[in-house]
C-alpha cells in the first residue's frame, strides 16, 4: 500500500517533467532545467541531512567544483587561441598544467563527479574521524566555503576570479545555444535526476539506509554495536558531494556561467532551505522543494523586483513555522489524518473489546 502510493508520486513527478517541454516556453524550460540541477543537489543534501543528520552549510563548494570542472573544458573549447580570454588579460601566455587536463571532455566530466567526491571524502575523513559533529561540522563546512571562495577569487589568473568562467559556445562542438541542444540537455538532466534519486532510494530502503538513521539518532551508540560511523558518514557525505558535482556540471552547460559567488555561503544555505521546504526526510520532497522554492524565487523576483525578498523571506518563515517537515511532511500529515480516521474506528473497537 505504502510502496504503491510512493511509486505513484514518483511516476507523476517524472511524467510532469517529461511533458513539460510541450507546455512551457523555451526560456521556462531552461529555467526548469536549472532547477532540476538544484533538485539533484537537494537529493544529496536530504541524504546527509534528513537521513544521516549531517548539516552541511557548504555544499556550494562541491556544486562549484563540479561546475568549474565542466566549465574549464567548455572554456577551452571556446578559446580560439587555446588560452582562455581572462588569462590573456592577466598576461598568461601558456596554459597552466591543471588546465591542460581539461582539454579532454571525458576527463572533465569524470572530474566533475570524482573531484567533489574526493574533496568531500578528504574533508569528511578528518572531521568525522575526529568526531566533529553537529553545528561544529556545519561551521567547518562554512569555513571550507570561505577558504575555497577566497582562493578562487584570489587566484584570478587561473580561475577567472570573481567573474568566474563564462562565454562558452559549444560542447562537443555542438552549439550550446541551439534549441535542440537545450532540449537534449534538459532530458539528460531529467535522466540524471532520476538516476540520482534511484540510487538514493535504493540506499535508504536497505540496511544501509537504516544505518544512516541510526547515525542520526545516536552515532556513539553505534560504535558500541561494532560500527565505525565515520566510514559511513564519509561515504554518504562524499556521495552527496558527487551529486552536487553532477548538478554543477549540468548547471554550467545550461546556464553558461559559474562564479565563486555560486559556491558561497548564501547559495550553500539556500540549498539547505530548498530541502527543508520540500521535506528533509523525503528524497522526492527534497527535489520538489528545490524546484518549487526556485520557481517561487523566480516568480517573485519577476513580479516584484523591488521587494521580492520580503515575500521570499516571509515564505521561508511560514514554511518553517507551519510545516516543520516541509511539503512532504504536509502530504504525510494529510494522508495520515485520513488513514488515522479509518484506523481510529478500528482501534476503538479493539479497545472496547479489551476493556470489557
Amino acid at each position, binding site marked *: 500500500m505504502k510502496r504503491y502510493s510512493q511509486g505513484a508520486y514518483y511516476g507523476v513527478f517524472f511524467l510532469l517533467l517529461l511533458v513539460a517541454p510541450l507546455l512551457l516556453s*523555451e526560456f521556462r524550460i531552461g529555467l526548469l532545467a*536549472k532547477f532540476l540541477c538544484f533538485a539533484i543537489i537537494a537529493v544529496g543534501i536530504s541524504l546527509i541531512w534528513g537521513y544521516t543528520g549531517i548539516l552541511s552549510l557548504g555544499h556550494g563548494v562541491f556544486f562549484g567544483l563540479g561546475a568549474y570542472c565542466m566549465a574549464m573544458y567548455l572554456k577551452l573549447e571556446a578559446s580560439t587561441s587555446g588560452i582562455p580570454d581572462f588569462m*590573456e588579460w592577466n*598576461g598568461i601566455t601558456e596554459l597552466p598544467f591543471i588546465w591542460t587536463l581539461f582539454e579532454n571532455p571525458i576527463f572533465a566530466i569524470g572530474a566533475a563527479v570524482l573531484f567533489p567526491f574526493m574533496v568531500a571524502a578528504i574533508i569528511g575523513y578528518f572531521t568525522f574521524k575526529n568526531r566533529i559533529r553537529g553545528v561544529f561540522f556545519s561551521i567547518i563546512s562554512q569555513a571550507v566555503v570561505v577558504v575555497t571562495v577566497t582562493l578562487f577569487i*584570489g587566484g584570478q589568473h587561473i580561475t577567472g576570479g*570573481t567573474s568566474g568562467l563564462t*562565454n562558452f559556445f559549444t560542447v562537443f562542438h555542438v552549439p550550446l545555444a541551439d534549441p535542440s541542444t537545450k532540449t537534449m540537455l534538459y532530458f539528460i538532466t531529467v535522466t540524471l535526476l532520476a538516476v540520482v534519486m534511484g540510487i538514493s532510494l535504493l540506499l535508504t530502503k536497505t540496511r544501509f539506509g537504516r544505518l544512516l538513521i541510526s547515525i542520526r539518532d545516536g552515532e556513539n551508540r553505534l560504535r558500541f554495536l561494532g560500527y565505525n560511523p565515520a566510514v559511513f558518514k564519509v561515504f554518504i557525505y562524499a556521495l552527496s558531494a558527487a551529486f552536487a558535482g553532477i548538478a554543477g556540471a549540468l548547471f554550467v552547460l545550461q546556464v553558461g*556561467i559559474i562564479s565563486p559567488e555560486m559556491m558561497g555561503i548564501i547559495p550553500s544555505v539556500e540549498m539547505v532551505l530548498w530541502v527543508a521546504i520540500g521535506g528533509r526526510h523525503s528524497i522526492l520532497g527534497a527535489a520538489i522543494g528545490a524546484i518549487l522554492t526556485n520557481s517561487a524565487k523566480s516568480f517573485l523576483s519577476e513580479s516584484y523586483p523591488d521587494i521580492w525578498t520580503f515575500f521570499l523571506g516571509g515564505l521561508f518563515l511560514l514554511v518553517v513555522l507551519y510545516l516543520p517537515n516541509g511539503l512532504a511532511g504536509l502530504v504525510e500529515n494529510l494522508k495520515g489524518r485520513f488513514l488515522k480516521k479509518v484506523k481510529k474506528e478500528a482501534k476503538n473497537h479493539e479497545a472496547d473489546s479489551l476493556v470489557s
Partner: protein
Amino acid sequence: AQTSEPSSETGSESNTTSSSKGDTVQVGILHSLSGTMAISEVSLRDAELMAIEEINAAGGVLGKQIEPIVEDGASDWPTFAEKARKLLQQDEVATIFGGWTSASRKAMLPVVEQNNGLLWYPVQYEGMEQSPNIFYTGATTNQQIVPAVDWMLENQGENIFLLGSDYVFPRTANKIVNAQAEAKGGTVVAEEYTPMGHTDYNTIINKIKSTKPDVIFNTLNGDSNVAFFKQLKDAGITAEDIPVMSVSVAEEEIRGIGADVLEGHYAAWNYFQTTDTPENTTFVENYKAKYGEDRVTGDPIEAAYNAVYLWAEAVEKAESFEVEKVKAVSDGIEFNAPGGVVKIDGETQHIYKTVRIGEVQADGQFKEVWNSGEQVKPDPYLKSYDWAAGLSQ
C-alpha cells in the same frame, strides 16, 4: 516584470519586432536591487527610469512610449544571466540597460550575444573588451585611469601605493598602472588587494605607513571604501600627508562615507554633480525633485541616464528598434549630456568623454581640479599607448 506577454515559441530572432508591438516599446532594466551591490545599482535604475520618463513625456521614441521592465540581478552573476535571458527571450525587449560590476557584464555578455540583443553598460571598467552587442557608456581605462595616473605622477609624486578589491577591475587597472608608472618614471611601492566586503584596514594602513608612498591609487569597491577611509583618518593620515586617488568613489559613496573623512582626497571621473553645464543644472534639479533633496548624482548615474538617451537617438536615426540597424547607425551619435557632449564611437561602441579630476570638498561635492579639455576617444585595448603594448595581445 510588471508586464509579460505570452511568449512566442519562435525564439530569439524575432525579438525586436514583437517588443514594439502597439504603441509601446519595451526595454529591460537589469540592476542589483537586492544584495550587496544594491547600494550602488539602485541609483542607476532610478536614473534610467527618469530618462525614460523624460523621453516619454517628450513623445517617446519613434512615436512609441517606452515601457521599462525592471528586473533584479540580486548581486549574483548567474542571476544577471538568467534575467537577461528572460528579458530577451520572454519579454523580447528592444534593449537592456544594466549591470555595474564587470562580472555582471561578463555574465550577460554571452546571453546578449547569443540572443542578438543589446546591452547598455553604464559603469567605468577595465577595458579589454568589445562585444558587438554591448554599448559601453562609462569610461574605459584611457578615459579615467590613464589620465589619473599621469596627473598623480605630475602633481603628487612618483611613489604609488596600489590598493584594490580582489576582482577583475582593480587587478586589470593596476596592471595598467604598473606599466604606465614604469614607462613614466613612477614607482609602485606596494600592491594590495582585499576581499570584497573586507572591513579591517589597520594592517594595510600599517603597510602604508611603512612604505611611505606619495599617493594611494584606490580601486576599492563599495563598502570597503567606507572602512578604509574612516580607518585611514583615525590612523592620523590626512589628505595632506598622503592623498588618495580613487576611481570608484563618486558622490553617492561620499555620502555613505562622510565628507569629513574624505575631504581633500581625489577622484577621477567624467562627470561630477558640480560639473557646470546648463544641462547638468536641470539634470540635478530633476533628479532631486524626483527622488529626494538628499539624493546626489554622480558619474555612473549620469552614464546610465545618457545610455537611455543615446539609445533613443540611435533608434530614431535608424528608424527601427532592430539591433542590427541601431548598431549600424550608432557611430557619431551625440547627446548633450549633463557632463558635456558625449559621442558614440561606432567602431568600439564606447563613448567619447571628457576626463575630470576632482577634489572632495567639505560638503561632499567635488571641486574639479583638472580636465582633459576635449573629449577623449575611447581606446579599450590601449592600442595608442606604446607602454601598453604588452598588456593586450
